């Protein structure tokens, strides 16, 4: 047996029904989209509210921590002072070549065995920085002293100012002046 389904409604009525069904479908789709959109906004709103509340809690915690830290004001001041002075202390080892004890030890080391220093004056504020008056057996020894000072990494320009033999003692009395090595001079 064969079944037939025949819509016998007039054509315009059929078209109206089709349009009405289409519009109902569209409306329900739009309403669904709006509902999803509103739910999304609600989620974002609740998230924002939660974050705002959490922010207040955090701020309160920060305030509490700052109050607690402030109660250590004295020790904090001490540590700050120690670190401030520490910066200067760290630089202390850097300029060993400028220490007077190292400089005069270097002069002593540069003095030949046949030379006796009689007078030594050092002044890092004026040039020449060092003046030495000494006695020795010969001019060659005074020159040897001068050359040894020149070799030193501590000292720069060295001059043998004078050398004269004392007729009574037969000693050669000499004067040498020299300067500290400056950063501009080449490394020896």
């Amino acid at each position, binding site marked *: 047996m064969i079944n037939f389904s025949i819509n016998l409604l007039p054509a315009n009525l059929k078209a109206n029904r089709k349009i009405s069904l289409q519009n109902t479908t569209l409306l329900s789709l739009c309403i669904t989209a709006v509902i999803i959109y509103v739910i999304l906004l609600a989620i974002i709103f609740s998230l924002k509210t939660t974050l705002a509340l959490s922010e207040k809690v955090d701020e309160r915690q920060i305030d509490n921590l700052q109050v607690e830290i402030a109660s250590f004001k004295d020790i904090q001041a001490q540590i700050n002072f120690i670190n401030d002075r520490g910066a200067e202390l760290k630089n202390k080892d850097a300029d060993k070549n400028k*220490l007077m*004890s190292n400089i005069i030890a270097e002069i002593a080391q540069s003095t030949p065995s046949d030379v006796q220093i009689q007078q030594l004056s050092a002044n890092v504020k004026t040039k020449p920085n060092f003046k030495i008056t000494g006695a020795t057996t010969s001019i060659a020894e005074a020159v040897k002293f001068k050359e040894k000072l020149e070799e030193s990494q501590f000292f720069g320009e060295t001059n043998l100012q004078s050398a004269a033999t004392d007729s009574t003692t037969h000693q050669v009395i000499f004067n040498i002046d020299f300067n500290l090595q400056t950063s501009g001079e080449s490394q020896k």
Partner: protein
Amino acid sequence: MIIFNKTFWAILLSTLIFVLASAWFIGKPLVESAWQAYGKKADNKQQITSLEEKLASLQSLKKNQTKVSDIYQKAENFLPKEKNEGRFAVQIEDQSGKVGLILSNLTFTATKEQVNQTQTSEETTQAQGASQETTPTSAPKEKYPSVGFSTDLTSGWSQLLSLLQLIENGARSNNLYTLSINKGEGDNLAVRIEGVIYYKPSVVENDQTNTNISPELERKFETLGQSVPALDLTHGFGRENPFASY
């Protein structure tokens, strides 16, 4: 087949207008403020972590208060806020005693505020006066205000060397500028030492480091003034006392 009639467009457009308008006027500010709150939350978390670390560090230092106070005293002695020349006088007297010397005198000169290099050169020129033998040079720049000092003493060579080492490696920040040694009777030397001691009234605030003392710094302060480095006496003619007769 879709039929685009007026009702279709009305539903579609009114939905779109509603969604876009509410997105612009409600959604956008809401998302912005939520994003901002999220960023603030991250910042706060970081700040809390940093403050908690700072607090923990301070609590730990508080437990070692005696040690911190001890280091503070040494730092204060090294570069004090005020001149404290009296304390230095005691130190230098003590240092002289250690090497068996007695200071003939100890004089403190006027305080110098921080000066620049040009001013120092000018002052040096004036100080030298009529002397034609010496020419002024750029003196080391004073980093901090200073008090000048000078002392006269009679000493042997090795004692002098030890004393200079003790002063220069001592507990107080100083700089020796002038040294005059004249041969006296026997092995005695007539010595004049001039220099400056520094002080620094201000303290530079440094929030990054003010809750911690590095172990290296701690060690440096603990050993400050307690030992002197050995002099390099290996490369010359090996002369022990250049003022001794040959």
